[in-house]
């Protein structure tokens, strides 16, 4: 950076009385513009290096500064941009172009109850800029955090809009309690998970985080280790995500319009049988049984063509998705503002699934006097989601049904009064066509269900806070802040009376109104001071109180008078004796005090300590107070004099470590009380013990250890961050399984028993890989490993998941897959083979449904002498469901006005129980996946060696479908091209006449490709949350065109 030298310095006359008095010399002025688009940047700090003499640029990017002395360097710095240092020399005009600093996106990092400079951070905090994920077609921003930061695992289990992704920060840390992180929006702890989730009324999933317009987000900070999270004390065990919304910046008003329109397609479909194979297979199932007759027949339509329906076309579709955001922001010396409007309408790839969102935000800060300021942040969102029934085992579940729908019958029928193909005799079921019998279990025509039944949720969310802040003297800040998070949810379902689930009740509706007000009041004192220019002190004291109330009431009615009434329950348009009413209310409260002290000596040696004292209503009064301390230290080796020779290569090197004890508040509202809840008997009201209490219940607590290195190289061109972490959850609140024969409610009593350890390493590498002329390539790679181990359970007793597929066992990873070990198929008779615990092999004789010892010398022998069994003790752990590694690889390439982003995500080390595959091998009169074509037919046609002989109605025996079986346990490793975006910024000179500052257009493919050996739809499909893919929905692949406009 060669620049002219100045010969002399001018003295600055301070505008303020306390400024250091300088000999005035001259004025230097100039303009700061953006390297990205040439626009002026207001608010850039312009400081004479090594002094307190400084100013900021005005709205048009210009500055003036008084300079004294004979030498000097001007430093230009701005959040998110590369700092430039320019020798002043003799120049009086210095124009500077600032480039985006991808290595150090922010100088300032938001931490709990405050901010800190990045270089001073002693904890593990990952930051993701809002702009990184603002332009993705996504139902909610949270799913786009996947792969963006080390230690943060985000799983999107399906392409269903409205469903909340599963977020885990540094492992899964509890068995019975919540494992999702605390989400704090502009300082206010917010609802996350599933709206209405407390009462489980949600007919259509509603993700509270989808209420936030992604373009309103300035940044995410993910607090991971003890040093960073201890300040949140009892709420910190699953990590904390801080979301900061945008605020106006001083300067002229800015307007932006961000928009995209795209289409979403199903990334992968099921491979199902066509009509002909269906007939063959189903007749084989039937006739393999004694007395069985062929019932499946091809059907010819009116045009003489064989009916061969692709039901996936009826259930999945291409959806159009669009989003529009308008924002205006700006500021003066006293005021800054940010306003936005957002509209998003997305049609999901599952028919009847959609999400529509209207949002507005107003963030205003006002200086009242020089020591007093006031601010308000308000976001109001209306979100409406519709969705199909998706339950793994629901007859009308869209995936459950689509894999079963008979391909040899049509979707629609002119002869049926409804226009759909509905069975003339069993009006509930799909029409049988030319088949002799109807579909098993009377499954309804799924297209009829999707077109006529409704499942909807409409929410209104208000996320708002206001603060008043005083600075009585320099370094001391007093702030009081009141926040409100309010959700009203209207949940509705309607079942059409003509077929399917609504037939029996002659049409039915249910409607629930849920209210979730929460208020949060924080009073914060911060004091920052530097003593003797070497001792930097930062003290924070907070008092916080929060109360949440959740209530709902609802009604269900049946025997509807007319199908017109399907929007809302309408008075008297149903048979009154069918009406039922329900409701509930619950509350929780927490009050806290906390203190934090950060000290550093010469920005070289850092020590931090914090303590939080929480009182939570969910803990028995004698144990209600919990104290959660944290300590941390850091050593910036690069500041040491002995290091100075290396700084040209290693520009910054920091060692850090921390320890904290934190807790978990996601334990339910009253986990300790002995409760007599509602227990009605038919029409008679009653009460009963519904929860056995434990007055000795204590805080669920966790010890977090973290040690790491942060380094940057070549003047910040490359950054490296490495950390080792361990989380010991030694006192978790476990819903301890009681012997069911003892008969306590739910067979559990909450007790502080159980020890889970999570540990791993995190590595982040990033930097400017290449810059040549107009071309640049910046890349960032992160890797996380995690190991989960259950160390102690109550009396060492295993805990099975309620579906029986998983086991939590000492010494294993949590919720490991547990089941039978398959040994293929007996080539002599098509019986499935299994290993017993002693590794001997038994065959399951499909005809008698008995197990016999498998004798390779006489494989057909199923005589009484060989009678054996396959029982619970023959099961084994078949694999862990938690990935052992995951991460992301982000690439940003620019060439002239083009920009290209390619983002990869990867994950692995886990196993998936592909229960959907089992369902597609169902032995009922339903369709199957093509895998079934590999079945054993005869000794001459033994098939693929793993698919047994067919036999009607014997799925449970043939495929062991009630348990996990090694035959269906697959590796979950994948590499995904998560995003490809190609953008073009229109040259400025073409736009200035139109008054446009910046116009960028881009095309994008999301979920462009997945490389995996997993046979299911997608290796992230996870319907149980524990590595089971049981009739999950497909993922979407989105193609879109978007534009960003600023003026």
């Amino acid at each position, binding site marked *: 950076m060669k620049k002219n030298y100045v010969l002399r310095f001018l003295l600055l006359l301070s505008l303020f*009385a306390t*400024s250091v008095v300088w000999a005035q010399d001259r004025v230097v002025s100039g303009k700061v513009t953006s390297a990205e688009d040439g626009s002026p940047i207001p608010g850039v700090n312009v400081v004479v290096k090594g002094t*307190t003499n*400084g100013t900021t640029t005005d709205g048009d990017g210009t500055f003036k500064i008084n300079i004294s002395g004979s030498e000097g360097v001007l430093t230009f710095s701005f959040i998110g941009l590369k700092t430039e240092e320019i020798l002043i020399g003799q120049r009086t005009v210095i124009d500077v172009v600032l480039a985006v600093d991808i290595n150090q996106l922010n100088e300032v990092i938001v931490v709990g109850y405050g901010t800190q400079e990045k270089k001073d951070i002693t904890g593990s905090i990952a930051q993701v800029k809002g702009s990184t994920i603002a332009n993705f077609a996504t139902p909610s921003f949270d799913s786009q955090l996947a792969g963006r930061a080390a230690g943060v695992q985000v799983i999107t289990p399906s392409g269903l809009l409205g469903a909340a992704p599963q977020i885990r920060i540094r492992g899964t840390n509890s068995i019975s309690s919540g494992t999702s992180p605390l989400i704090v929006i502009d300082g206010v702890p917010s609802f996350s998970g599933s709206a209405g989730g407390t009462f*489980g009324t949600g007919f259509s999933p509603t993700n509270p985080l989808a209420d936030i317009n992604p373009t309103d987000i300035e940044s995410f900070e993910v607090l991971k280790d003890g040093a960073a999270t201890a300040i949140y004390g009892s709420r910190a065990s699953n990590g904390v995500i801080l979301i900061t919304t945008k605020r106006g910046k001083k300067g002229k008003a800015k307007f932006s319009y961000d928009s995209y329109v795209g289409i979403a397609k199903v990334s992968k479909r099921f491979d199902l049988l066509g009509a002909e194979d269906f007939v063959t297979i189903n007749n084989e199932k039937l006739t393999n049984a*004694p*007395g069985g007759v062929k019932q499946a027949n091809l059907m010819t339509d009116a045009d003489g063509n064989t009916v061969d329906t692709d039901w996936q076309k009826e259930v999945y579709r291409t959806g159009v998705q669009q989003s529009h955001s308008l924002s205006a922001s700006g500021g003066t010396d006293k005021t800054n503002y940010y306003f936005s409007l957002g509209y998003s309408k997305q049609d999901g790839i599952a028919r009847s699934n959609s999400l529509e969102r209207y949002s507005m935000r107003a963030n205003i800060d006002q200086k009242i*006097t*020089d020591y007093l300021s006031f601010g308000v942040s308000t976001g109001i969102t209306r979100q409406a989601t519709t969705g199909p029934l998706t339950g793994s085992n629901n007859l009308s579940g869209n995936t459950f049904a689509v894999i079963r729908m008979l391909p040899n019958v049509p979707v629609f029928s002119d002869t049926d009064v409804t226009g759909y193909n509905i069975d003339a*005799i*069993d009006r*509930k079921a799909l029409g049988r066509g030319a088949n002799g*019998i109807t579909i*098993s*279990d009377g499954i309804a025509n799924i297209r009829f269900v999707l077109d006529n039944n409704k499942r909807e949720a409409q929410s209104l969310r208000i996320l708002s806070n206001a603060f008043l802040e*005083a600075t009585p*003297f*320099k370094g001391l800040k*007093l702030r*009081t802040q009141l926040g409100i998070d309010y959700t009203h949810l209207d949940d509705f379902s309607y079942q059409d009376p003509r077929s399917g689930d609504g037939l*029996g*009740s002659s049409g039915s509706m249910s409607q629930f109104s849920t209210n979730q007000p929460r208020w949060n009041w924080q009073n914060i004192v911060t004091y920052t001071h530097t003593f003797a220019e070497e001792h930097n002190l930062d003290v924070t*004291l907070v*008092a*916080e109180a929060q109360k949440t109330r959740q209530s709902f009431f609802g009604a269900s009615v*049946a025997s509807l008078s007319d199908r017109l009434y399907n929007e809302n329950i309408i008075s008297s348009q149903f048979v009154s004796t*069918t009406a039922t009413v329900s409701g509930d209310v*619950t*509350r929780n409260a*927490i*009050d806290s*005090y906390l203190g934090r002290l950060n000290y550093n000596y010469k920005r070289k040696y850092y020590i931090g300590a914090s303590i939080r004292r929480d009182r939570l209503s969910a803990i028995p009064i004698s144990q*209600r107070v919990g104290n959660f301390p944290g300590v941390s230290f850091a050593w910036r080796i690069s500041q040491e004099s002995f290091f100075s020779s290396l700084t040209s290569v290693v520009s910054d090197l920091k060692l850090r470590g921390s320890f904290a004890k934190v807790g978990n508040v996601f334990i339910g509202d009253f986990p300790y*009380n*002995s*409760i*007599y809840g509602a*227990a009605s*008997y038919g*029409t008679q*009201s*009653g*009460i*009963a013990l519904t*929860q056995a*209490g434990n007055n000795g219940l204590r805080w669920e607590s966790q010890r977090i250890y973290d040690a790491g290195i942060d380094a940057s190289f070549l003047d910040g061109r490359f950054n490296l961050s490495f950390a080792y972490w361990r989380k010991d959850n030694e006192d978790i609140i476990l819903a301890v399984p009681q*012997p069911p*024969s*003892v*008969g306590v*409610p739910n067979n559990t009593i909450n007790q502080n028993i159980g020890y889970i350890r999570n540990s791993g390493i995190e590595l982040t590498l990033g930097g400017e890989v290449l810059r040549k002329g107009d071309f640049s390539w910046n890349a960032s790679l992160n890797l996380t490993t995690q190991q989960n181990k259950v160390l102690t359970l109550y009396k060492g007793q295993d805990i*099975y998941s*309620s579906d029986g597929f998983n086991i939590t066992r000492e010494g294993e990873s949590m919720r490991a897959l547990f089941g039978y070990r398959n040994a293929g198929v007996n080539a002599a008779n098509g019986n499935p083979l299994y290993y017993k615990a002693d590794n001997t092999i038994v065959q399951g004789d499909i*005809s*008698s449904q008995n197990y016999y010892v498998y004798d390779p010398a006489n494989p057909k022998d199923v005589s009484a002498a060989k009678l054996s*069994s396959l*029982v619970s003790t023959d099961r084994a752990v078949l694999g862990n469901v938690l990935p052992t590694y995951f991460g992301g690889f982000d690439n940003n390439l620019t060439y002239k006005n083009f920009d290209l982003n390619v983002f990869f995500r990867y994950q692995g080390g886990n196993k998936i129980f592909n229960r959907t595959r089992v369902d597609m091998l169902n032995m009922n009169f339903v369709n199957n996946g093509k895998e079934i074509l590999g079945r054993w037919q005869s000794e001459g046609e033994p098939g693929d060696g793993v698919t047994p002989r067919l036999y009607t*109605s014997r799925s*449970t025996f043939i495929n062991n479908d*009630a348990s996990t079986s090694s035959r269906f346990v697959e590796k979950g490793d994948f590499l995904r091209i998560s995003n490809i975006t190609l953008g073009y910024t229109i040259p400025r000179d073409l736009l200035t006449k139109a008054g446009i500052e910046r116009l960028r257009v881009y095309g994008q493919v999301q979920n462009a490709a997945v490389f995996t050996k997993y046979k299911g739809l997608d290796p992230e499909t996870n319907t149980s949350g524990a590595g089971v893919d049981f009739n999950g929905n497909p993922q979407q692949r989105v193609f879109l065109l978007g534009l960003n406009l600023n003026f």
Partner: protein
Amino acid sequence: MRKISISNSHLSLSKCAFVLLLLTGITTISCKETFSDLAPTDALSDATAYATPDRVALAVTGVYDAAQTGFYTGGLAAGASRGYPLGAANTELGDNRGEDVIAVPSFYLITYQSTYTVATANNQFYWETLYGLINRANVVIEGVQGAATGGVITPEQALIYEGEARFLRALAHHELLVHYARPYAHTADASHLGVPYRTKAVQGAAAAVEAAAQGRNTVKECYDLLLQDLDFAETNLPATSSTPRLKITRATKGAAIALKTRVYLHQGNWTKVVSEGAKIISGSGTTLTSPIGGYKLTATPEGPFSSNYDNTESMFSIENGAADNGTVNGSISTMYQISPGRALVAISPIIWNDPNWLATDTRRTLLAQNNSRAYFSKKYRDITTLTDANPIIRYSEVLLNVAEATARVSGLTQASIDQLNAVRNRAVTAANQFTVASFATANDLIGAIIKERRIEFLCEGRRWSDIHRLAKDPVFTSNGIPAKVDYTGTTFASWVAASATGYIGARATTAVPYDDYRFVWPIPQTETTSNPVLAAQQNPIY
């Protein structure tokens, strides 16, 4: 962000005031010591649940709730209910373990085909909800006794409440014995393993540990204890209720005696069946009524079902309501009814084609129907709101219990035939009614009574109970779980009422011999993983 410091001029008065205001705010929170001291707003605490007579009454009703809709998969919070144990499931499971119904794929196939394991939901939740009922009864007995001691309710009222709870406790234990233990006659002195008979309330972890130490009682101990409970119930329960619905849906003296005739029948204690029956059977010929509670048969076999909450025959049924039932996934009406019901339990041609079930029997038309594919029961009729009462015991069962016991004790007698005829004659033509001449031996009569039970109680879940109790009977045993008909192996033509040959088609679900381990259900793994005592007493092979 100017790095230029703000003036350090003296603090103004307004500034001081404001700072004070903020500091006040900070300290305000600390003044509210009770801020986080909340109590549940939707439930009572255990300390206040028995504080008033009304609450005691509610808690007693809560015991019936456990009988009607215990928790299924997902637990109490999810509100999942399939009518376990006695609101619907006992009927569905009792039928599907036998051969007189067919499980239409794929709802009850595991039970029907005996492919259950320790992790199968049906037998797991049957076990769990029955014990849930038992503990709820024990908890309420303790609460009621406390309320009486504390003067909240009268001692007389307390005895009635305790009688109700003990009636349900006995019923629950008997259901457990029928599914998880071998029958009374398995060993000569019934010294084989029964189930743990629990009589102590468990409300917390310490009591749970104590209870878990109790192993399986012998079958004899279990029968002795449950008869004690029923004797207590008989002594203390009222004979009737002024509200017709409550007379059927709450335990009464007559219901306790009726249940005793069933229990003694399982015990093979024929004389006790007869003596208990004598308390509630009087009259002559086939006109038999009960002096206690006024029970008598309804005029037609349809009576207990067409008017299931107000009839003279139902002695105890579990109530279901529009807002509280086994849902579409469990209610008897949806399971047994043809469309718009789900038609998941068909009548098997094994019983339908039986030549002893006369073609003209009105129960074939009043209580059965077909959908052109198979025959189904028509006993449970409210498809819309699923409120059908689940029958537990009817006066007709008392008559047939006593008829069989009388024949066993006294041989071929008119009294026994009259009791059989009382039930049967209302469904058959006069020409077809039995007389003494109809039977050559007492065993012929007993065989006819047992067949009549299969017809009269078809689709009421009683079949398994008879297979179980007769398993060791030298004459009437079915030698285990009979072979069954697979639905997919049938066509509508498979059903021929009173076919001369009976059903001769395939029975693809093979028989399970009495000695096979599958004759009894396994103790579920939820129990064995958390209870080492019962894990060591698991039924063999499982």
